[in-house]
């Protein structure tokens, strides 16, 4: 951020904000807690045995608080293995692609130069859940990671409605195995350049390869194989690119959609897979693979704050429990707290370290505040959260973890206290004035609701990923594909990015692709062509 000089400010308004208060606190065991005489282990060294004992202790506390998780499997890995994992978005099996290599190289470079740290942990939404621990971590960090990933994330994966609906935790690794095999076969058969070109296209469109409202079919490797075989066999017999469209029409015959009653489709990759006129079957299969993987990660994109917040809340809670019961010592406490502090730090908007809102900080504050409201409600809380105040916090937290994604969680639970603590304020960038931002609302009685709604809106996926629908695919000789972007608040598409994306769509669709931007009345504002 460049320095923003306050200029057109009303000097007469009173500005009563004191400096932000930071109150360092020293951890103290809960008064009256029954403490064990000896901590489970001290110092920074760990063995698999100690970790296992810690896990038992954490599990006991988690069970007592009613945390419901998949069984956990921890895997101890080295730093370079962690780098490998990070490069394939955390999945231990994945098809190979240069973009993963790019990620790997840049991370490795950053890590070697000491510019970036490594992720402490990766946890995979599978059943049993797999959490990776890095061997270079100290005892306190290992236990922190176990509580965070093995219990926090794990419980979130198991309970949250999105993950329950959209991902099949037990099938993803098998499917990726299948995908890897298939991509490899294609490379052998059709050459890596071809395969890479198709995958590049699909990756660019991956965000438009998800069903946002429909529950996807269960992944099953066996069924995928069978389907693939059928498809390839059929293609072998009948495929002739010049006549492909005839088959297509035949299949679509019952209720063949005339151009004017075409249902807009939001899943672009699905549409391409099923209807692209000239795509050979193996390329359709590649499209399908990217689509399925994208679908699997879709809930993760929607629950960054909720997921990280829950995991952070739970590691904080569980480790404090360990401390209260005397299972860990003061040194242990101070070490992980220092780390925790770094993770949930939220630099102010004008700090050089500011890179947007920290999902850990926001999520952690929200969940912590839910617990506070349950346990020690103030009058304000009673007014804002009448149902929450004074109820059992375990149930309130479980409910919040189960039924919300980022935007709804914020809309429902972002409390005035959190807004005050984080000093959230709402800025407006208007079309009329491109030189300035205006402050619309701050953390006061008049502003709470507006800030909260705006922040929730900011976490809807439309805020980052422009919407795109397949508006029409004509069946005539031109076979053009019409994509539509609905413009809201006058936000148009970046011309350059639209152009490159269209290029990718065209590569798969082969015939003309047009992207139009329409406003809410359906008036066409702009047209991009390939």
């Amino acid at each position, binding site marked *: 951020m460049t320095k923003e*000089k306050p200029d*057109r400010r009303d000097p007469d308004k009173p*500005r009563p*904000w004191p400096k932000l208060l930071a109150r360092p606190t020293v951890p103290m065991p*809960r008064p009256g807690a029954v403490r064990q005489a000896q901590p489970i282990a001290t110092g920074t060294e760990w063995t*698999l045995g100690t970790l*296992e004992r810690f896990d*038992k202790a954490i*599990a*006991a506390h988690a*069970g*007592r*608080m009613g945390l419901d998780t998949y*069984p*956990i*499997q921890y*895997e101890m*890995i080295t730093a*370079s293995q962690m780098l490998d994992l990070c490069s394939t978005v955390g999945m231990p099996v994945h098809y190979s692609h240069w973009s*993963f*290599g*790019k990620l*790997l*190289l840049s991370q*490795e*470079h950053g890590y070697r130069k000491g*510019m970036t740290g490594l992720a402490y942990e990766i946890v995979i939404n599978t059943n049993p859940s797999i959490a990776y621990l890095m061997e270079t971590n100290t005892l306190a960090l290992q236990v922190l990671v176990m509580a965070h990933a093995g219990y926090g994330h794990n419980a979130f994966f198991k309970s949250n409605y999105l993950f329950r609906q959209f991902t099949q935790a037990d099938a993803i690794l098998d499917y990726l195995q299948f995908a890897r095999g298939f991509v490899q076969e294609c490379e052998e058969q059709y050459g*890596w350049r071809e395969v*890479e070109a198709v995958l*590049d296209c699909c990756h*660019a469109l991956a965000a438009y390869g998800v069903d946002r409202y429909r529950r996807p079919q269960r992944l099953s490797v066996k069924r995928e194989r069978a389907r693939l075989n059928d498809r390839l066999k059929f293609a072998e017999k009948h495929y002739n690119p010049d006549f492909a469209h005839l088959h297509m029409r035949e299949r679509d015959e019952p209720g063949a959609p005339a151009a004017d009653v075409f249902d807009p489709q939001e899943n672009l990759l699905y549409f391409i897979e099923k209807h692209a006129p000239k795509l050979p079957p193996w390329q359709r299969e590649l499209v399908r693979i990217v689509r399925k993987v994208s679908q699997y990660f879709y809930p993760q994109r929607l629950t960054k704050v909720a997921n990280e917040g829950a995991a952070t809340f739970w590691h904080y809670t569980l480790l404090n*429990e360990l401390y*209260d019961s005397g299972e860990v010592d003061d040194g242990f406490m101070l070490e992980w707290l220092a780390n925790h502090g770094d993770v949930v730090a939220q*630099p*102010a*908007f004008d700090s050089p370290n500011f890179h947007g809102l920290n999902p850990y900080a926001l999520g952690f504050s929200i969940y912590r505040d839910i617990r506070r409201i349950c*346990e020690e409600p103030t009058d304000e809380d009673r007014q804002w959260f009448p149902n929450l105040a004074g109820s059992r916090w375990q149930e309130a937290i479980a409910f919040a973890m189960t039924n919300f994604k980022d935007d709804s969680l914020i809309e429902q639970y972002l409390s005035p206290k959190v807004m005050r603590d*984080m*000093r959230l*304020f*709402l*800025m*407006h*960038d208007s*079309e009329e004035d491109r030189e*300035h*931002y205006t*402050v619309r609302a*701050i953390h006061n009685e*008049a502003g709470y609701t507006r800030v909260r709604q*705006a922040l929730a*809106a900011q976490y809807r996926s439309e805020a980052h990923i*422009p919407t795109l629908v397949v508006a029409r695919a004509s069946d005539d000789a031109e076979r053009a594909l019409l994509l539509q972007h609905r*413009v*809201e*608040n006058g*936000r*148009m*598409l*970046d011309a350059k990015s639209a152009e490159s994306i269209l290029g990718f769509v065209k590569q798969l669709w082969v015939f003309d692709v047009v992207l139009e931007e329409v406003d809410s009345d359906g008036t066409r504002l702009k047209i991009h062509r390939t």
Partner: protein
Amino acid sequence: MAQTPGDSGGSGSGPILAGLLRIVDRRSDPPGRGAINRERFIRRFKDEIKRAADEEFGKRSIKDVGRGGRISIPGRGLAEPRLVHDDDSGSHDFVLPGNRDFLPGDSIDRPRKDGGQGDGDEPGSGEGRDSFAFALSREEFLALFFDDLELPNLERTRFGEMSMQRMRRGGYSREGLPANLLPGMTVRMGIARRIALRGALAERIAELEAECAGCNGPRRDALIEEIERLRKRRGSLPFLEDVDRRYRSRVPTAAPSTRAVMLCLMDVSGSMDERKKDLAKRFFALLYLFLERKYGHVDVVFVRHTETAEEVDEQRFFHDPQTGGTLVHPALELAYHIIQGRFAGPDWNVYLAQASDGDCTVEDGHRSAAFIAQELLPLLRYFAYIDIPSSSGWFNRASDLWQSYDALQSPAFARRAVHDRNDIWPVFRELFARKQAA
């Protein structure tokens, strides 16, 4: 936390304690996927990476060239495009943390688009955003260079036959140098010896005692004395004896020759300007890398000459200016003596690369060619001559030395002319291109 006593139903009743917990140690797993994706990346951007590596090349010392290391390629082709909003259109709201003293209605300057944002991560590099930096390993670096090159045929046929004695670890021995002593092994042998001796002595004593019980008189006295002596001996077995000592043993084994030396000969007379030296350096660097890749370790000898020849270090070889006329023959002679003195014998693979602008007298040229043919070539695996004619070259004819070398006809001799930087690599490839077996 205070008001929440434990859940009813007791702790640990959940599925999490059902004994499914496992900590699996994967640290020793072979590395896998990372390497594949890495290779994919390099394969895809081979051209860019090669170009970047080429630039890196010029900056390094000859021995460091092959070390691998940081490469940075333009980021343009690397981007994975996504569809994004145009930030200059429409209006939008956004929430920021850390309000200091803003009130509703305040307005502040919109940050300039060109004004940085990109700082922080890559200090000091203005184009940090546009370029992608990463580290290549040495192997990857060299693999890029020597994609399809091979040592000349000649060498390959001899390579297999060539063998030398090499000392290898081979078990233990009772004699050896103190430096090779194995203390642990030695003490263990001592323990074994003491156990064995003690057992044998104990048996003998038991035997004698049995005998002693059945007799008397002087025989009995003698037996008692003997038992006493044995007991004493058993009590004072030495901790270590000479026979306990064990040494690492080394046995000679035959191994293919892997030692290589490369002699760089360069004309540094007044006519060799910086440009020509740079070309020569590039060629030498390539050769060095290539040989090192094949052999593991390569000695490099630098010989420069004007009218006289001398052996120098790398720094002086490339950067110390000299003036004077040119005589090639002395340099070849010096090379010959160096080879005879230090690198003689079948276990050395000797390569000689000569770079010159080709100015020499006719007589010198002929003498040199004859010397190479008769004396040098038998000692060498390969003789590569690089001719760097003056760029002005308005008499468009082959240089004197080039003409003299016309007389050389040997598969171990090759020569090429290099005019500018772009020639180096093709020429090098030509010289070492994998020859199709006839």
